[in-house]
């Protein structure tokens, strides 16, 4: 089998850029003030979401960049420049740019509870945000409180625990970025495993004078998926043998193997898929009853909505998929346990979920993007006009043309999902027809989204 990977770090300029301590700091020094401005405008600016910098820049500009560009093409690169863990990490290191001797961290250094060393917390955190998302996405004050809570929690965990525990186990955004980063055509990996095996000090994990041990608690030599690599490049800085590189690869390469598949990640795939569908119905559909119920937190209508939303995420969609995998197992002569069949096939939903989110994002981002020009000039909605764009009128970009983007994107995801389903059957050594129930599920989901959008 040929290795189709191009090492980007073999180019000296790329390597210099990626191993510079100044680059991530500079990018965080840009994203952090923007993030703080989003919080300030949310707390003190206009309550009208469409005129508030916090709402527009976080939930339209940043979200579009994240889901349409960064995650599919650069994996977890956002995590490397994310402002949320930055203050906590700087406190933990007692340094902004340069590393401490031996990569020493100033923290109580507690170990995160073993039972929580998975992404169930992230699943719960995302679901909690998603449940209140109609309020969070549209109410600047609430949105700011959520962002503020996240940054305070990230700082607290940096003080209490080792490294980036918040990013690895708690962040509601990090969970799905990790899951979908497996699709990205880029990866950080060791070049020669034998070098790592003979390297006793393991400076990539322990830290050294050159940098910190992996903030994501990952031993780079064991890295075989993008899911938990935050692309911070610390391992590249601390490896004395120049044995870590960044590679271009075939998209979705991490998903070609069924090894190491887990129930918590499988449920992340279900939650993401279901939320994409739910948002498409509730937020973008013509049914005002859903929107009003989702917005009226605490009312009977909201409780009904919340029950349905949670049931769809945790029971209904996984249940339908479970029925499909039960049938798939029967077609494969019950070769494997139901749990293994269910979990392994669930990863088929990774490309499907990513394209569903892309299609959903396309539906509202372009038509609402012109609000960004207004809030750049008047972030608080106080009547400023810093750059002369505050009074630019709302202009729906690509209105009526979104479907021409959505259809091919959904199709690419469906085809990738079908390929993965058949590959899963193949890797299990069962007849390929066993994948057909899962293929049917994926096709039905895509048809449902097409019906909503086209």
């Amino acid at each position, binding site marked *: 089998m040929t290795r189709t990977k191009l090492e980007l770090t073999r180019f000296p300029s790329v390597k210099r850029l990626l191993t510079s301590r100044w680059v991530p700091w500079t990018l965080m020094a840009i994203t952090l003030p923007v993030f703080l401005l989003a919080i300030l405008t949310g707390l003190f600016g206009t*309550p*009208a*979401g*469409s*005129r508030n910098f916090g709402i527009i820049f976080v939930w339209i500009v940043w979200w579009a960049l994240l889901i349409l560009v960064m995650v599919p093409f650069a994996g977890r690169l956002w995590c490397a420049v994310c402002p949320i863990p930055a203050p906590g990490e700087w406190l933990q290191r007692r340094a902004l740019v340069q590393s401490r001797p031996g990569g020493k961290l100033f923290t109580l250094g507690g170990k995160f509870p073993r039972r929580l060393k998975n992404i169930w917390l992230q699943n719960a955190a995302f679901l909690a945000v998603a449940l209140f998302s*109609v*309020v969070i996405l*549209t*109410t600047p004050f609430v949105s700011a409180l959520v962002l503020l809570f996240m940054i305070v929690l990230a700082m607290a965990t940096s003080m209490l625990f080792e490294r980036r525990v918040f990013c690895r186990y708690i962040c509601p955004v990090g969970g799905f970025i990790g899951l979908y980063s497996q699709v990205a055509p880029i990866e950080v990996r060791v070049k020669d495993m034998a070098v790592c095996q003979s390297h006793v000090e393991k400076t990539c994990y322990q830290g050294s004078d050159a940098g910190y041990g992996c903030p994501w608690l990952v031993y780079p030599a064991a890295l075989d998926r993008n899911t938990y690599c935050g692309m911070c490049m610390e391992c590249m800085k601390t490896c004395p043998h120049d044995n870590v590189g960044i590679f271009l690869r075939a998209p979705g390469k991490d998903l070609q193997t069924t090894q190491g598949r887990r129930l918590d990640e499988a449920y992340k795939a279900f939650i993401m898929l279901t939320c994409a569908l739910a948002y498409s119905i509730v*937020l*973008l*559909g*013509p*049914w*005002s009853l859903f*929107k*009003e119920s989702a*917005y009226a937190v605490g009312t009977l209508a909201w409780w009904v909505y919340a029950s349905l939303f949670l049931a769809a995420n945790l029971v209904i969609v996984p249940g339908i998929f479970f029925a499909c995998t039960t049938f798939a197992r029967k077609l494969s002569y019950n070769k494997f346990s139901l749990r293994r069949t269910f979990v392994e096939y669930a990863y088929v939903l990774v490309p499907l979920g990513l394209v569903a989110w892309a299609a959903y994002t396309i539906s*509202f981002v372009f*038509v*609402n993007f012109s609000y960004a020009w207004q809030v750049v000039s008047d972030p608080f909605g106080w009547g400023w006009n810093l750059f002369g764009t505050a009074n630019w009128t*709302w202009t*729906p970009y690509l*209105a*009526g*043309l*979104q*479907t021409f983007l959505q*259809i091919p994107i*959904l*199709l690419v995801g*469906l*085809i990738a999902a*079908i*390929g993965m389903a*058949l*590959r899963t059957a193949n890797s299990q050594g069962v007849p*390929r027809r066993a994948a057909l129930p899962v*293929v049917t599920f994926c*096709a039905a989901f*895509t*048809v449902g989204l*097409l*019906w909503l*959008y*086209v």
Partner: protein
Amino acid sequence: MNFHLPHGRYYRYLIAVSTVCLMFAAIFLPLPVDAYTPETHTLQINARTFAFEPGSIAIRRGDTITIELEALDAVHGLYLDGYDVNLVAEPGKSASVTFVADKDGKFKFRCSVACGALHPFMIGELNVEPDIPLVRALLITLMGVIGALAFFWK
């Protein structure tokens, strides 16, 4: 020129090319549409925070439509995707527009005047039937599913 492809790879190239061709055919294939005499409709749409009533409207392609927008509680707009129609109504002062629905498919209409928290999601739908774009999208999907199964089955 003489080149050789392994049988399996050749087979897969053939499937991929055939699938793409069939998908393109589904885009341009003339589809049968029932003969229909266009009609004229007047549709009253009430806009309130944050909903249009009715939220979903179905008409036939070729129909002449007059939309009368009534704002019930605040200033609201109605922007119709794909038709570039934009209306703004105030309470007690309705607005209207007449146009021929000459494009088929599903078109969102959305409030074009910031009216509160859920303003970006104040959305309705105009369904101009028959929904040929959906039929084509489903045909393309069917081709894609069959092609993908054939491509990855080996």
